[in-house]
């Protein structure tokens, strides 16, 4: 309960608009910070000098310049020093560029890890819901977990199906696959595909498709080779991952750090997937690690599964430590963060096994968390097996199957509305009656049950708000 109230306070704090003349220390995004800096004559001139300092010079050369040093000192007291960026915000690239203008010179030039420009991640309700959905699914042999009894089970195939039945996911998926497999006639170009275009399409896919559809394609759990090969193929590695030669990892990192977006995503990955103990991620936030891993896909250090081994996952970017010379140790360390990262591995495995593997770090099993928009997305937080015992879900989970039958092309399959789509289908005159009465009966039951839970959630979250305010 206390935890929930803290969560809610955080969420309210986010919504508080800072005063116009707020302290410089108030956290804000770097776009606003640079705007504020530009309104101040001294700050804006120093900011301009700083940008010029960074053009075509490495850090040590820059710091020898007196003018650059002074500019840096002034800017350290400006809002730019404390600013952050949000993932997927508008003008994200501009924000990141402002960030690195200051932080490139503050960071030790060749250090292993840099600070992430992104805001620290909070545990999102949407994701918890997704893991619960997968828990519901697993009970009906449709989720991301294989029941022991079923022989032909392929969660990666189920993930593909779920994506195909959703209009947005289907469109975006075929967009990136097309971009990644378009081959010019061999006579015209030796390249099998346009890597750049492929990477852009992949980034777009993960930005625009909701996580509970895109993540299962990447992180499905596998028990056989066919499934693991499908998982490995998710990002079309022939184009987005493999190249003719393997570059040196430190060279790859250098290339990545010359690009604001890649540099930010890499720093973010290092921050959120740092192995702290034997098993855990920073703050036990598995989800945070997965998000920053996905953030790297479509960048210069695109990571992937190295083989179709289902028993033992190995992740790596496409690079090697051969020819590192005296930087061998540093290179090995960089590669180890991908290949032997317990946090990343556990996060992936936990995702595959749904809700009972650390995605619900709650001591109370019957707690209900207020969601960000209580009236739109009630976060249903109950013990998954309550749902599975009381209501036998229909053969297919409502979220994945019924929304595909809704007729408004670009529907957002939000769980709160999708639990009602079972009823809509029955009324839908264009259905060809393929739903047998037994299944629709089940659907109706579960939708009634879940909507009652949602109502409870709304009521409870209103109570919380009253409590806090």
């Amino acid at each position, binding site marked *: 309960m206390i935890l929930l109230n803290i969560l809610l306070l955080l969420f309210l704090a986010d919504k508080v608009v800072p005063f116009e003349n707020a302290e410089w220390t108030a956290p804000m995004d770097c776009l606003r910070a640079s705007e504020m800096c530009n309104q101040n004559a001294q700050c804006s001139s120093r900011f301009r000098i700083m940008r010029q300092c960074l053009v075509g010079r490495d850090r040590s050369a820059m710091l020898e310049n007196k003018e650059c040093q002074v500019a840096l000192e002034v800017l350290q007291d400006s809002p730019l020093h404390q600013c952050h960026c949000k993932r997927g915000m508008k003008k994200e690239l501009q924000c990141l560029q402002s960030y690195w203008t200051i932080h490139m010179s503050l960071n030790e030039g060749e250090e292993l890890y840099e600070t992430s420009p992104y805001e620290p991640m909070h545990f999102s309700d949407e994701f918890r819901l997704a893991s619960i959905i997968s828990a519901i699914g697993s009970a009906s042999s449709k989720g991301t977990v294989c029941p022991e009894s079923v022989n032909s089970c392929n969660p990666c195939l189920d993930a593909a199906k779920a994506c*195909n*039945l959703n209009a947005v996911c*289907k469109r975006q998926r075929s967009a990136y696959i097309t971009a990644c497999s378009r081959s010019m006639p061999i006579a015209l170009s030796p390249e099998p595909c346009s890597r750049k275009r492929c990477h852009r399409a992949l980034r777009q896919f993960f930005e625009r498709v909701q996580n509970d559809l895109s993540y299962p394609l990447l992180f499905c759990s596998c028990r056989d080779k066919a499934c693991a090969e*499908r998982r490995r193929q998710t990002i079309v590695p022939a184009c987005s991952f493999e190249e003719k030669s393997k570059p040196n990892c430190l060279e790859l990192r250098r290339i990545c750090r010359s690009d604001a977006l890649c540099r930010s995503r890499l720093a973010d990955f290092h921050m959120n997937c740092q192995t702290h103990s034997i098993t855990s991620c920073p703050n036990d936030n598995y989800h945070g690690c997965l998000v920053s891993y996905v953030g790297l896909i479509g960048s210069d250090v695109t990571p992937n599964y190295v083989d179709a081994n289902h028993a033992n996952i190995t992740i790596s970017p496409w690079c090697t430590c051969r020819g590192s010379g005296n930087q061998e140790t540093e290179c090995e360390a960089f590669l180890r963060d991908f290949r032997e990262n317990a946090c990343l591995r556990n996060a992936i495995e936990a995702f595959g096994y749904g809700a009972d593997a650390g995605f619900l770090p709650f001591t109370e099993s019957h707690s209900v968390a207020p969601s960000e928009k209580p009236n739109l997305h009630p976060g249903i937080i109950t013990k998954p097996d309550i749902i599975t015992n009381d209501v036998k879900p229909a053969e297919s989970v409502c979220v994945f199957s019924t929304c595909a*039958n809704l*007729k408004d092309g670009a529907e957002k399959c939000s769980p709160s509305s999708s639990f009602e789509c079972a009823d809509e289908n029955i009324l839908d005159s264009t259905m060809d009656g393929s739903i047998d009465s037994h299944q629709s009966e089940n659907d109706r039951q579960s939708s009634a049950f879940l909507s009652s839970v949602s109502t409870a959630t709304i009521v409870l979250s209103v109570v919380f708000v009253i409590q806090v305010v």
Partner: protein
Amino acid sequence: KRTKRARKGTKPCSLTDKEVTVSQLGLGYVSDEVILFRYCSGKCVATRRNYDLALARMKGQRVLSRENVDRARHSPCCRPTAYEGITFLDNHSRYHTIYEVSALKCACV
């Protein structure tokens, strides 16, 4: 749907969804991936023109010569007016795109 006659009539021309595996499409691709196949079905009674009425009468009255008249249709067909493609991974781990394999819009033409 108020009258008895309306209730008896089948549904008008519209899109219907069916979940099928790519293999079931019968186009020679072997893949267990499930896609949403949409097709057009339904009656086109409401959109008959004078042409259709006249043709039907003349066929009935044997006014037209019998050679090809049986193939002349006296009501519009429910057909797709727009299509979409599908993209999938086959069982040999290769991606394919099949264009214009599923209906997007239907109309009586």
